[in-house]
């Protein structure tokens, strides 16, 4: 199985060097070949399991509670402006 590393890296927003691209291509192919094994399992009509708790639609009362202050929330950001996160133009 060959994987288009460049395309997937773009989907994952992951900067990858040329060297890494080559290495990942062979390592990921090896792993994907291995997981091909799953094709031998017959799963026709088998339900999926995405989680095992059996819990569904867990909700809480719609009540405001104490939360971080604006200053606390921004305390780990490298770039802020007037109490907001500062990001590069995206449009």
């Amino acid at each position, binding site marked *: 199985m060959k*994987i288009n*590393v460049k395309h*997937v*890296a773009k*989907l*994952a*927003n*992951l*900067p*990858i060097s040329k060297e*890494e691209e080559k290495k*990942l291509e062979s*390592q*990921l192919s*090896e*792993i*994907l070949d*291995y*997981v091909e*094994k*799953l*094709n031998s*399992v017959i*799963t026709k009509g*088998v*339900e*999926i*399991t*995405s*989680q*095992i*708790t059996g*819990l569904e639609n*867990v909700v*809480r009362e719609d009540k405001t509670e104490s939360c*971080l202050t604006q200053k*606390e*929330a921004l*305390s*780990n*950001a*490298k*770039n802020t402006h007037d109490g907001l*996160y500062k*990001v590069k133009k995206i449009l």
Partner: protein
Amino acid sequence: MNYSAYSIHKLREGLKKKDFPSEDIVKDCLDRIKISKLNAFITICETEAIKKAKEADKKIKDGVDLPLLGIPISAKDIYLTRNIRTTAASRVLNRYIPQYSATVIERLEKAGAIIIGKTNCDAWAHGSSGENSDYGPTENPYLKGYVPGGSSSGSAVSVAANMCLVSMGTDTGGSIRLPASFCNVVGLKPTYGRVSRYGVISMASSLDSIGHFTKNVDDSALVLSITAGKDKNDATTPEIEVDNYKNYLTKDIKEVKIGLPREYFSDGLDKRVKEKIENEVKILEAKGARIEQISLPNTEYGITCYYIVQPAEVSSNLARYDGLRYGNDRAHFGNEAKRRIMLGSYVLSSGYYDAYYKKAMQVRTLIKKDFDEAFKKVDVIIAPVSPTLPWKIGEKTQDPLSMYLSDIYTVNVNLAGIPGLSVPIGLIEGLPVGLQILGPHFSEGKLFQVGKAIERPKI
């Protein structure tokens, strides 16, 4: 005096009788951490821990009685700790100071525990050996040059090398049970949802289990009685009442039905490990347990299923690290995280979702059903933790697939969401070996009961 070589129970007794103060215990642990070359810690909370110990001593003097009052503990560096740097052992978070603590940390501190430091681990909990940390590998305390197992490497070592009494770890595919087995300590992976994940950096959200390392089974039961239970901040913690685990510690194992799954004892297992487990099983039989051979037919698909589901969830969880709100940008991810983000993004991408992710979720159902069926016949299952003994540092780092395969006996437990307790059963050529006891959902009490029957009194 080596206070930290004792159990929590013994230390609490001594503290209550004023035989020694908490300050001495904490300083003894700190000294051990500072002279150690095992690289078990990323951050040491020296000043704060000594201050807390002094406060604990004052409370003890005033007659305050809390289950962990004055007891030093550590936490894997993916537990958020308010005002204490939390790195996930990754350069992405090398300067991240959390504004709040994980629910579990709050519960332990409320019970009187003192955080002595944050332990090293495979970055983002990705790994089976403890080598994949941006802060350098952790070493096995039993034999120089060997891995301690991962990903909760530093946590296992911190308890094994008497640097604290308890360490909190996480187990997504074996990351508590494997290092516990490699370091001769008791490691518990509770039922998925039994312990809150709130404030623990997510790896694979449908698999992540919050557990701990201790020196013995009694201490493991005590810690779970503090950490377990509903948390309004984690929607996957059910309203199921927390068992009184202490009651199981004095029960014998007469008539307890123990299953041995044949798929876990096949050719891939190191013969010496197999013999050691079989020997333990004989002892249990002599104590009155009923042993049955069972089968978990879909076992062999576990690792493949896991290495689709887990990277898929990893790629989604690690998408939040954009370097804008906290941390450094995505170029700072290490090789293993990059590999898993790529693998996960690929199996979830358009055109491949059904073939990989959906298929894996169906196989997950089959694996879970295997356990459901088995637990209709037996109370618990005994199995090896790792197919091999601890390996040499560097041996598998260039071959990701062979590293992944070391989780072959542990991942199915996470896919099924059941609990597992890793208990030490001795050494082979100087390297520790453990076995795991598995039970149905929320059967932790039973695991402690059987664990007690296996454990040799060390302390």
